[in-house]
């Protein structure tokens, strides 16, 4: 039997020699061109990192292909970023241009460094999740195709981080992104009483509901859902397939904007809901790509240099964001969950 609890591979054995030699001794970095970082160490060593966007869902053929490139140009070392990018670690300056040429010839997008659109982090969607309100990979592909030019630039007002989660469990920290694309369910689970009676443990199912919306119904040997309390999280569906949460007619997309995690200038903050619902329209979700592009372009045209989406909006005011973008403001935008009061305007000073 194989041993257990061996732990992950030791990172120290996987670092390229230039990193081992300059570990903790990096002095500064520059961005010599889009998608490339140049790090210089105290003793003058130079490391180039060439960043390439990946679709995250990749075959072993893809991995073998990038390995072949890393063997040719990086002495067999590479790394990945937290946003699904591949970074080729080049210690020989002379190999940077040839690597870039080969990457371009193979169609690998180079970018996502500095004041650029970074790769979209996302969840599984219809590819592999059990409670999705939409696909993730497909929307990400459609949006990245549409915003492609901004991935390879470095002259946006600031960084632009877009994230996508396929239901409102919001896996993957989409809740703190410049633009968050979020799958939303809009209808409570539909109870299949027959299935419940066949083999669902009712107390566990009742306990699974975070808002206490599910009550036992002993007469029917089933449960009832208090629909007003349901927040469509799908936890009950996880517990029992008898609680059908997917609803092809009503599931769709919401857009939230203005979040960030960095502490630079302003505190980390949540993204805020600006478009409560767009339809699921595969394979290219044109309503979603248009909405994201419109928000991004309004930011590009109006933000001052250095302003992330949220910083721009906080400066001009959310009321101005809605007038500039002409996105209709509705009752859906006003919070009525548990921490709503802090979002109400308690001042008589505002704009139109």
């Amino acid at each position: 039997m194989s041993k257990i609890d061996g732990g992950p591979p030791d990172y120290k054995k996987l670092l390229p020699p230039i990193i081992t030699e300059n570990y903790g001794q990096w002095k500064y970095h520059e961005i010599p061109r889009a998608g490339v970082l140049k790090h210089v160490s105290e003793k003058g060593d130079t490391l180039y990192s060439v960043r390439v966007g990946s679709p995250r869902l990749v075959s072993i053929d893809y991995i073998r292909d990038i390995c072949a490139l890393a063997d040719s140009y990086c002495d067999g070392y590479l790394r990945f970023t937290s946003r699904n990018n591949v970074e080729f670690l080049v210690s020989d300056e002379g190999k940077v241009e040839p690597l870039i040429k080969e990457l371009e010839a193979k169609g690998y997008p180079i970018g996502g460094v500095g004041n650029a659109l970074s790769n979209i982090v996302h969840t599984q969607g219809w590819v592999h999740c059990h409670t999705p309100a939409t696909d993730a990979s497909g929307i990400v592909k459609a949006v990245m195709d549409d915003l492609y030019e901004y991935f390879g630039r470095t002259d946006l007002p600031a960084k632009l981080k877009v994230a996508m989660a396929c239901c409102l469990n919001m896996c993957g920290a989409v809740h703190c992104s410049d633009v968050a694309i979020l799958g939303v369910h809009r209808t409570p689970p539909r109870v299949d009483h027959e299935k419940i009676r066949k083999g669902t443990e009712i107390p566990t199912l009742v306990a699974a509901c975070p808002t206490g919306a599910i009550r036992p119904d002993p007469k029917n040997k089933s449960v009832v859902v208090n629909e007003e309390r349901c927040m469509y999280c799908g936890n009950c569906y996880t517990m029992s397939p008898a609680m059908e949460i997917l609803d092809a007619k009503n599931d769709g997309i919401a857009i939230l904007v203005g979040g960030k995690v960095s502490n630079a200038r302003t505190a980390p903050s949540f993204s805020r809901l600006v478009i409560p619902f767009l339809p699921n329209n595969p394979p290219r979700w044109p309503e979603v790509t248009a909405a994201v592009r419109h928000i991004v372009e309004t930011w590009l045209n109006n933000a001052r240099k250095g302003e992330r989406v949220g910083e721009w909006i906080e400066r001009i005011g959310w009321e101005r964001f809605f007038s500039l973008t002409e996105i209709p403001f509705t009752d859906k935008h006003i919070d009525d969950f548990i921490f709503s009061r802090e979002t109400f305007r308690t001042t008589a000073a505002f704009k139109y």
Partner: protein
Amino acid sequence: MEKGPANPEVKEKVLAYLDTVEKAKSKEIAAKISVPKADVDLAVKELAMEDKVEYLYITTTFVALKGKVKPPQ
């Protein structure tokens, strides 16, 4: 961090309790059999290695006798 072997009596008690329920969290087992939770966790670890119990993740992680809970139909 070495925690040493589990107490065989605790292992027996855990198995006996799991026999009476479909699945349970180890905190609940500890309360029912009046044993510190850390001891239950250790017993469950060994019982899992012995293929007598298994872990189930259904919105949170439970413990059950091996094979007692069936995969979805």
